[in-house]
């Protein structure tokens, strides 16, 4: 089968080497227009002040690892899926569970909320993506109305509704992505090009609404045209599996999180990687990434149980959040940017809104005398400071002072 349809002078090896040499040429071309680095351009932007984020809601109810979650467009509801096959819909504001369904398979790695809020989709080791309409009728069994939409030949790693409830985009361990018609289960378009499992995808917020990006175990992030099924752009700079991809709010770039412990920003117009978010002390892979509403912050959940918050423009880390007791598997900012929710293998989901605490310079005080935390605070409930919301009277916006060296106060052991 490997030698079918060969043209003259063409062998598998010659094609492979041609691909390699073209890749090299492409990198040269991309480098030609790269005249400045992002952190250089961002020098004139004010640095961000200290961030303190507090967990406001902890959603407990999954008996096993939480693998995926998605927000509803109403900004408060959440669907989450776990290793034991349970998919739960929560009103995370009240922490009530509104619906629960048990899938016939374990490791439900993908779940998504429909744009209308009337249905959810999920899938995992069953190789399928199923859509469940949400109903409050007590007599109806949610599982009875289940619609099996997508069929892959390997596990489902990610799914997302497109602009309506009628179409679903899926990514699978069989190396392909696919677009399906929900009503009939028909395959509308398939996307081939990844050389290994596809782990994540994200739809582009664009005017024509026709592209999406996917990342996979072949270390490639690929941008696809949904209409033709063709790969439009491909980026291969990561050193390991790409676990998560997310578009920058303007749609001109996207970020990726990978097992190589870095997050990277790729610009689509410049056609290259433009920033790397990494630190020597971060050695575990990033499992999921998402931007804040303005794109200034990048939240990334890691396999070392932490969440790191990056300044997208300056490339520096703004904050590190502890609190989860096992790896963070999924992280999404809410549709209106008021909070983000992280799900973890420690069986919980945590919703954390952003509360910006400003370092107000008080004259005559040494850094260690300052009130409030001068280092990110452990969120395991032992924070000794209160989390203030924005107060009128203090200048809003980022503060341009240098952050003091963190004081060595142990907040864990008394």
């Amino acid at each position, binding site marked *: *089968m*490997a030698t079918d349809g060969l043209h003259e002078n063409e062998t*598998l090896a010659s094609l492979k080497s041609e*691909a390699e040499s*073209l*890749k090299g040429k*492409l990198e040269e*071309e*991309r480098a030609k*227009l790269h005249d*400045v680095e*992002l952190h250089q*351009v*961002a020098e004139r932007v004010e640095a961000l002040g200290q961030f303190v984020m507090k967990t406001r*809601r902890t959603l407990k109810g999954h008996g096993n690892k939480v693998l995926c979650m998605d927000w509803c*467009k*109403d900004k*408060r509801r959440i669907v989450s899926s776990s290793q034991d096959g349970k998919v739960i819909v929560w*009103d995370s*504001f*009240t922490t009530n569970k*509104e619906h629960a369904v048990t899938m016939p398979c374990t490791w439900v790695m993908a779940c998504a909320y429909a744009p209308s809020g*009337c249905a959810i989709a999920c899938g995992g*080791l069953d190789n399928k993506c199923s859509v469940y309409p949400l*109903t409050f009728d007590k007599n109806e069994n949610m599982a009875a109305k289940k619609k099996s939409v997508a069929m892959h030949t*390997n*596990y489902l790693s990610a799914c997302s509704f497109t*602009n*309506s409830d*009628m179409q679903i985009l899926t990514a699978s*361990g069989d190396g392909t992505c696919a677009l399906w018609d929900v009503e009939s289960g028909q395959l*509308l378009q398939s996307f081939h090009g990844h050389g*290994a499992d596809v782990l994540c995808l994200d739809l582009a917020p664009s*005017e*024509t609404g026709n592209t999406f990006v996917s990342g996979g*175990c072949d270390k490639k992030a690929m941008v696809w045209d949904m209409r033709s099924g063709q*790969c439009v752009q491909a980026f291969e700079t990561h050193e390991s599996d790409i676990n998560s991809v997310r578009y920058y709010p*303007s749609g*001109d*770039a996207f970020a990726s999180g990978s097992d190589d412990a870095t997050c990277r920003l790729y*610009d689509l*117009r410049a*056609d290259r990687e433009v920033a790397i978010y990494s630190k020597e*002390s971060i*050695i575990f892979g990033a499992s999921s990434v998402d931007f804040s509403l*303005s*794109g*200034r912050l990048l939240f990334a959940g890691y396999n*070392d*149980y932490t969440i790191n918050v990056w300044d997208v*423009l300056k490339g520096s880390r703004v904050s590190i959040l502890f609190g989860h007791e096992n790896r963070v598997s999924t992280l999404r900012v809410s549709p209106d940017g*008021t909070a983000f929710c992280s799900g973890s293998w420690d069986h919980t989901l945590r919703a954390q*809104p952003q*509360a*910006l605490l400003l370092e107000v310079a008080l004259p005559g005080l040494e850094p260690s005398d300052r009130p409030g935390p001068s280092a*990110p605070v452990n969120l395991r409930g032992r924070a000794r400071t209160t989390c203030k*919301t924005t107060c009128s009277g203090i200048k809003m916006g980022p503060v341009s002072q240098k952050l003091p060296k*963190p004081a060595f106060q*142990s907040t*864990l052991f008394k």
Partner: protein
Amino acid sequence: MAAGPASHGGHPRAQKPHLSKMERMVVSMQDPDQGVKMRSQRLLITVIPHAVTGNDVMEWLIHKYCITEEEALHLGTLLVRHGYLYPLRDPCHLELRLDETPYRFQTPYFWMSTLWPAAELDYAIYLAKKNIRKRGGLFDHEKEHYDQLHRKISHTWDLVVMQAREQLWAAKQRRKGDRLVIACQEQTYWLVNRPPPGVPSVLEQGPERNSCTAGRVQMTVDFYRREVECLRKALGRARVKSSVCLEAYLKFSSQRGPHDPIMSGCLPSNPWVTDNDTYWAMNAPSAAVPTRLRVEQWAFSFRELLEDPVGRAHFMDFLRKEFSAENLSFWEACEELRHGGQAQVPALVDAVYQQFLAPGAARWVNIDSRTMERTLVGLGRPHRHVLDDAQLHIYMLMKKDSYPRFLKSDLYKDLLAEAVVPPETKRRVFPFMRKPRHSSPSPALLPASASREPSGGDGEA
């Protein structure tokens, strides 16, 4: 140990870059000059060399990576949990203590990447040794495993016991210090590979993934041909200078900063912080009076105006005044086609044609002749993308012509002036007097009309 290092051809290491990074870290920690301060630890009458304390480890991490104490502690704890550091006293719990507890670096033989996965036989021998050394010295979960293994490999159990005795005897020949160290090393190894119940296993990686080499995707001629094709196209692509692209981020971030609840808070208050969902009520998709920030956002881009149902409705009003409302209606119909169900495609295409494109149609849209020709030809075999060209043409028309006029219009200016700026809610002084959190009606409860919103429509909240 019965089994040698696992021979996976580098597979585990390649799939777990964090392990090699931890190993590099641990190696540099043991550097005689730059590493952690080592000391000899006295345990009763034995002296163990090359021991470190939790504090030293933490200080070293803080110094080397410029991180806070908390992060250093977390990192150190992860090193211990993965078995790269083991405590010399009480090795039942793998955590980094900041007291005088001595730790040592695990021998590479027992590193996670070397001996992965742990062999059943080795575990049986280890448990047998423990059992022989101290009757009833096994923990509950270990007893369970022991019985399980006994049942499983009962045919070679004699071998297991024999090996165990051999190893115990060989150990007796060593000095007390060495014996203690080896015992701790082994115990840590098994704590990592067979964690007691309630302790999360660091070995778990989730469903198996395949990288390029293992190949679920057939690397056929077609695959490479496609790749070459894609690369050729990519080479011919028009690129924009980095400086231009990056400047755009700065502009975008600063423009959106005030709209980002993270950066600037939200008025009246962030619902998650104050348990007050007025913010959501004021910004509901169908709010009668939109907030100022919301109206300002309509000026950022045409897409955002259309994505907001209230914005779109006002734009429609404006177009009606200009007698070009059919453009927006046509665009909406095309969106419905593109994102609708497959079964509805032929009917929808026909309806759109009749209403907007046919000669003498009630709401005829003005498309250039070339696009119209192409569209009409495509209508012969209707599919969901047959109207894409026409839709794009009309979209651009609105964006370049009607949209700028809308932003300059009195209608928009009035909207801005009337827009609400909510007053900030003061945070309650007594946070424990919580208002009960009210449930909002679920989008799923509302009538089916809600589900027909094709593009970017918010679920009614």
